[in-house]
């Protein structure tokens, strides 16, 4: 079938309209250097403006410093910010590159047909927004208002969400749920009646034992957690890392358990067995707060370390020793719930096992375990009620995934592919700040869904792959150039942070709030945007909590008093948990009601066949997904990913360090680009590893085009979590190829 919507490289176009050439950085740097003749007379007296970072979801608050020419020079953490304590991570420090990246989207674009060939033409803002408005109105007339969906990651999503809700659609999804932390939230809600949320309520600072299962803190640069892990190391905490790869965290650990991939549940059940069998659990806590201990005890009776050894390859004495180490530290112990946990399709159950283990150790609500987070309650201006949609994406799911507490990005994507069983076919997508091509697994399915749409509007700062499939592209200015809603973070102390522009937007880019409000105007939804500018709205909100925009512009971050209960449970305190039984449910009544195993069960997952290796992916500290791949400062630190190969495997295949090879997965998908081999003992012989977010296929991303392999391209086998619809992505196997010639099928 000829595709209706071609992938268009934006490159050919906007080059002509370039205002700033590639030489900007060089000339800026040399100007500063020339004027700064002495080492001792640096340009110090910068004016500073507050911001919170948009390079990842941790949203650290900081200060943007400018040089004497009014150009952004550096970004430094705000000392008062509990998320970063004055220390930005490499991505936040390198955030300046988001502003200076000369490959940014520069002006609105509309897809058009010229001599039978699809292309983009530059458009005015009014024209681009009118295009979107007329399309969503048409979709509403023909199919219903709920048939336009929003995919969002990042600050701008809120404003488009407001437009969509006002319009009558609740199909608003973020890939941070079903492709990332969703199973964790569902598992902890099922167990404790509340999720983990972000930043995680892990009390790492005061823990005596930190257990990481596949979580690679230090490589994932979740700033507060990295800082606290370092504090914990200083205080002599025991770290236990379970990972088939010798991660950075593993290298800081007293115990590294090099587990066979996909067998974590067996290890967790076996730990429970030891802790219950040796009576190491917190008896008072379990008796007072939990439900279903006897059933759990019976359930794990046969899951001995010897049983688990056969499955996990972790020696029984190591399983016992680590279980005892956890119990010894309890309740100041954290079996960390991780963050990106959509691995094998039984992820909610694996995270349930993590939640249960924490309950046995009595760590939930205890110092050094999990604290009770608090979040500032900042009143929002009262908006008229949103119309109630007749249908949502859930109607297209046939009653599945009832326990998902947020919309599934993959579910909305599925609901865009019309089939006889689906009754909510989505016809329009608005995509804000998420490169769905590299975010959702099974690229073919994503592109198929896109082909069936009547509208794809993309808001981004960079010409990411998703923009190439768009009908309309709206260039957002970067976070250093705009106001956004207040950051309202949960934490030990509630805090709010302000983002304001340090400089004017470059090119013809605009803030998302402005775009959404202009769109709302065209859809007669201005009642949902009573303030003309976001800063007026923020000022109103700040005044409700005894601050003001003026104050926040000076301080950037404000810590507020805790409003709710204490950080930890008091000794013997009566607690009502928000579960069916009011207790911590070791035995889940909610899962049982929905027809799922009330206690986690280990099931065997497929293993790689001869010559194939399990594809494991992860993070590098200097990059966030594919978002930073073209950032000049961060690309300078890491410009491509590599595939980690165990020396035994390398020998078998005669692979050398730094050699470039292609990868092919179990479904015959060959990588678009070659990837550098890294021969290293740090990875098991049955797996390979790569950092996510590379292998970009859009030439307009000049620095990162064709650099490395996109793990997402290799993920075609998706194992859906039956409980909440998470997309398990670690059941893909790859082999090595020395060319990328496509084999004829």
């Amino acid at each position, binding site marked *: 079938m000829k595709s209706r919507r071609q992938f268009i490289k934006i490159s050919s176009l906007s080059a002509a309209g370039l205002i700033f050439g590639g030489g900007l*950085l*060089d000339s800026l*740097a*040399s100007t*500063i*250097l020339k004027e*700064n*003749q002495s*080492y*001792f*007379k*640096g340009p*110090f007296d910068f004016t500073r403006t507050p911001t919170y970072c948009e390079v990842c979801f941790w949203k650290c608050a900081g200060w943007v410093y400018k040089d004497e020419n009014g150009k952004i*020079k*550096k*970004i*430094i*953490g705000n000392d008062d910010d509990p998320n*970063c304590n*004055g*220390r*930005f*991570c*490499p991505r936040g*420090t*390198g955030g*300046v590159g988001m502003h200076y990246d000369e490959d940014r989207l520069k002006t609105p674009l509309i897809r058009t047909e010229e001599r039978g060939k699809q292309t983009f033409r530059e458009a005015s803002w009014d024209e681009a927004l009118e295009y979107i408005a007329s399309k969503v109105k048409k979709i509403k007339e023909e199919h219903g208002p709920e048939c336009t969906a929003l995919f969002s990651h990042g600050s701008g999503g809120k404003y488009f969400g407001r437009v969509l809700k006002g319009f009558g659609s609740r199909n608003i999804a973020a890939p941070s749920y079903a492709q990332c932390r969703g199973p964790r939230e569902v598992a902890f809600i099922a167990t404790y009646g509340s999720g983990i949320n972000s930043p995680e309520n892990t009390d790492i600072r005061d823990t005596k034992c930190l257990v990481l299962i596949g979580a690679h803190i*230090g*490589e994932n*640069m979740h*700033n507060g957690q*990295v*800082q606290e*892990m*370092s*504090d914990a*190391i*200083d205080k002599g905490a025991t770290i236990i890392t379970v990972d088939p790869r*010798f991660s*950075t965290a*593993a*290298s*800081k650990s007293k115990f*590294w358990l*090099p587990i066979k991939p996909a067998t974590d549940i067996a290890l967790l059940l076996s730990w429970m067995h030891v802790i219950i069998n040796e009576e190491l659990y917190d008896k008072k806590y379990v008796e007072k707060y939990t439900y279903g201990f006897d059933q759990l005890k019976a359930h794990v009776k046969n899951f001995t370390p010897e049983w688990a050894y056969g499955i996990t390859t972790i020696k029984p004495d190591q399983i016992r020793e680590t279980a005892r180490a956890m119990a010894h530290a309890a309740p100041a112990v954290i079996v960390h719930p991780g963050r990106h946990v959509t691995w094998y399709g039984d992820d909610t159950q694996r995270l349930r096992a993590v939640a249960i283990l924490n309950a046995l150790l009595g760590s939930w609500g205890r110092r050094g375990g999990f604290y009770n987070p608090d979040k500032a309650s900042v009143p929002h201006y009262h908006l008229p009620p949103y119309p109630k949609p007749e249908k949502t994406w859930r109607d297209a799911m046939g009653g599945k995934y009832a326990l998902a507490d947020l919309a599934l990005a993959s579910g909305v994507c599925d609901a865009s592919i019309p089939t006889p069983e689906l009754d909510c076919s989505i016809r329009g997508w608005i995509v804000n700040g998420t490169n769905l091509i590299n975010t959702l697994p099974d690229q073919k399915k994503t592109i198929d869904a896109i082909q069936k749409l009547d509208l794809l509007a993309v808001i981004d700062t960079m010409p990411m792959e998703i923009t190439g499939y768009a009908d309309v592209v709206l260039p957002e200015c970067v976070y250093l150039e705009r106001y956004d809603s207040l950051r309202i973070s949960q934490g030990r102390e509630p805090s709010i942070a302000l983002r304001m522009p340090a400089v004017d937007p470059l090119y013809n880019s605009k803030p998302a709030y402005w775009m959404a409000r202009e769109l709302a105007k065209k859809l007669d939804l201005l009642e949902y945007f009573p303030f003309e500018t976001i800063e007026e709205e923020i000022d109103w909100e700040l005044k409700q909590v005894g601050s003001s925009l003026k104050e926040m512009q000076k301080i950037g971050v404000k810590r507020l008093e805790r409003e709710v209960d204490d950080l930890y449970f008091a000794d013997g305190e009566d607690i009502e948990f928000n579960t069916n039984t009011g207790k911590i449910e070791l035995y889940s009544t909610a899962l049982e009601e929905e027809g799922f195993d009330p206690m986690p069960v280990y099931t065997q997952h497929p293993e790689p066949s001869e010559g194939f290796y399990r594809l494991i992916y992860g993070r590098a*500290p*200097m990059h966030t997904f594919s978002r930073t791949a073209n950032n*000049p*400062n*961060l690309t*300078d*630190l*890491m410009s491509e990913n590599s595939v980690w190969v*165990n020396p035994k495997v390398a020998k078998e295949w005669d692979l050398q360090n730094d050699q470039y090879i292609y990868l092919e997965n179990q479904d015959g998908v060959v990588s678009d680009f070659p990837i550098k081999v890294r021969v*290293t*003992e*740090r*990875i*098991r*012989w049955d797996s390979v590893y790569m950092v996510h977010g590379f292998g970009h296929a859009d030439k307009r991303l000049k620095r990162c085009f064709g650099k490395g392999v996109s793990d997402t391209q290799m993920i075609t086998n998706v194992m859906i979590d039956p409980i909440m619809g998470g997309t398990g992505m670690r059941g893909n196997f790859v082999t090595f190829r020395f060319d990328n010639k496509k084999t004829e099928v």
Partner: protein
Amino acid sequence: MRYAMAIDTKKCVGCSDCVVACQTENNVPIGYCRDWVVEVMDGTYPQLEIELRSERCNHCENSPCVRCCPTGASHYADGGIVLVTKNECIGCSACIASCPYDARYVHPDGYVDKCTFCLHRVKKGMQPACVAVCPTKCMYFGDLDDPRSDVSKILKKRKHKTLIPEAGTKPQLYFLI
């Protein structure tokens, strides 16, 4: 006064924040760096060890770069910090060849550039940019002659080493092990 830096290899996660913070603080052009991260791995799966180190100029007490500089551009400044006066530097690169730590590079503007321990910040009572930004707080900076300085205290408490001590340059960059 004797400025020195200690880096805790047990806490460093190799994130390279020190590198990018130095670049933005000191206008180091993209593609160059005054500090960098080294990962040393030892062993066979699953008996492995990794040492992570943020490295830079060692501000040696007996610096071959200062000795070999024909113009005197490379010199000792306050507290033993080794500096290059760029308008006296002719870019001959003799210092680059003499440095056992490979800590210097030729700036695109033609002079030799390197870590200054952020003396411009230190003079204002601030920490070097790399130390101030490090999320793991694995770096300690200060005056070794002052027993109350962060660096003096940590070196007293912890086992440490220097790199290539056999070169006899008396490096002032210490690694906690």
